[in-house]
């Protein structure tokens, strides 16, 4: 299940500062080893957290992408996108 790979990848953004920098500078290359599906890869690289949420990626883990500026995300951008999920 590559959704779990995305959760793991988010945790690596927190824990591995080299990976954190790579996810900011060249995320397409950084995520290569994670074996994501084309849709997962597309959503992640676009910082489309609403799509990732629908795929089952954990919100708490995705917060690390916003906190550390991965995949073009910032806290305001993350906020706007995750709030677009119907609730």
């Amino acid at each position: 299940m590559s959704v779990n790979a995305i959760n793991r990848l988010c945790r690596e953004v927190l824990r591995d500062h080299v990976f954190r920098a790579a996810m900011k500078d060249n995320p397409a290359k950084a995520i290569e080893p994670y074996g994501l599906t084309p849709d997962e890869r597309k959503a992640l690289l676009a910082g489309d957290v609403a799509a990732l949420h629908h795929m089952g990626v954990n919100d708490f883990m995705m917060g690390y992408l916003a906190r550390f500026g991965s995949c073009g995300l910032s806290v305001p951008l993350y906020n706007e996108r995750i709030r677009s999920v119907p609730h």
Partner: protein
Amino acid sequence: MAKIVAAYGLPHTPFYPSQVIEEGPSSPTGQMFARARESLIAAKPDVIVEFDTDHYNTFFFDNFPILAIGIDEKFKGPIDEPRGGMPVYDVPSDPKLAEYLHMHTVRAGYDVASLREFVADHSLMVPLHFVNPDMKIPVIPVFISGHLPPLPPAQRCYDFGREIRKALEVYPEDLRVAIIGTGSFSLEVFGPRIDPGKTDAVPDPEWGHEVCDHIDAGDIKGLIAKATEDRMHAAGNVGGELLNWIAMFAFTEGHKPEFLLRQMEQGHGYGGWRLD
């Protein structure tokens, strides 16, 4: 015999350590934690047992126990970079007592995982940062899965707490034990219900007040009846952290709180019980 001397319900908001440094000890959060710290110091515990929900740092999605006890000489935390440079502590523990609690609870019918050489995140460490003087009192972490569905039923968590209490009450050493349960009543973190521009929100402060009203009235049975998985999740994606308080209530039965301070704009409260 071990003696339960105090119990506390406390929040673990990751930015509180830096906020209290910036705003000073007279800030509302500084004062509320100070109240708990003074009470805990006065109770003179030899060991703290803390009920906590790990935030995917001690465990992960590939292996996530519903209940677990940490058994080791010490553990490190927080390992999830809380804001403001909160120190990373080496926390002493009591592996002999932790192993005893694990054996007792498993033999009583609870499927409790054990873990060694573990680390902890801010959820366990923020309360300890404020109330454990110089991090010298040994701490035994007891983990309850309060985020990831399916959650254990509230009654199960209370009964699990009661089993730990029974085990402590016949433990053949003269130890003074303090209990901590940590978590929010209503809180959404990084989920769709966060407030505009923020990383969190308190979706249901009324539920938080309802929880506190039950605590004030000593009506834990009524609270347990209401605290279903759907009800807790309706209060936010980390609303299940209430289960850590519910396990802690197994120790406060029949006692009025020494203090119960509501901080409902943040979705939580601070409660303290002296039991000796």
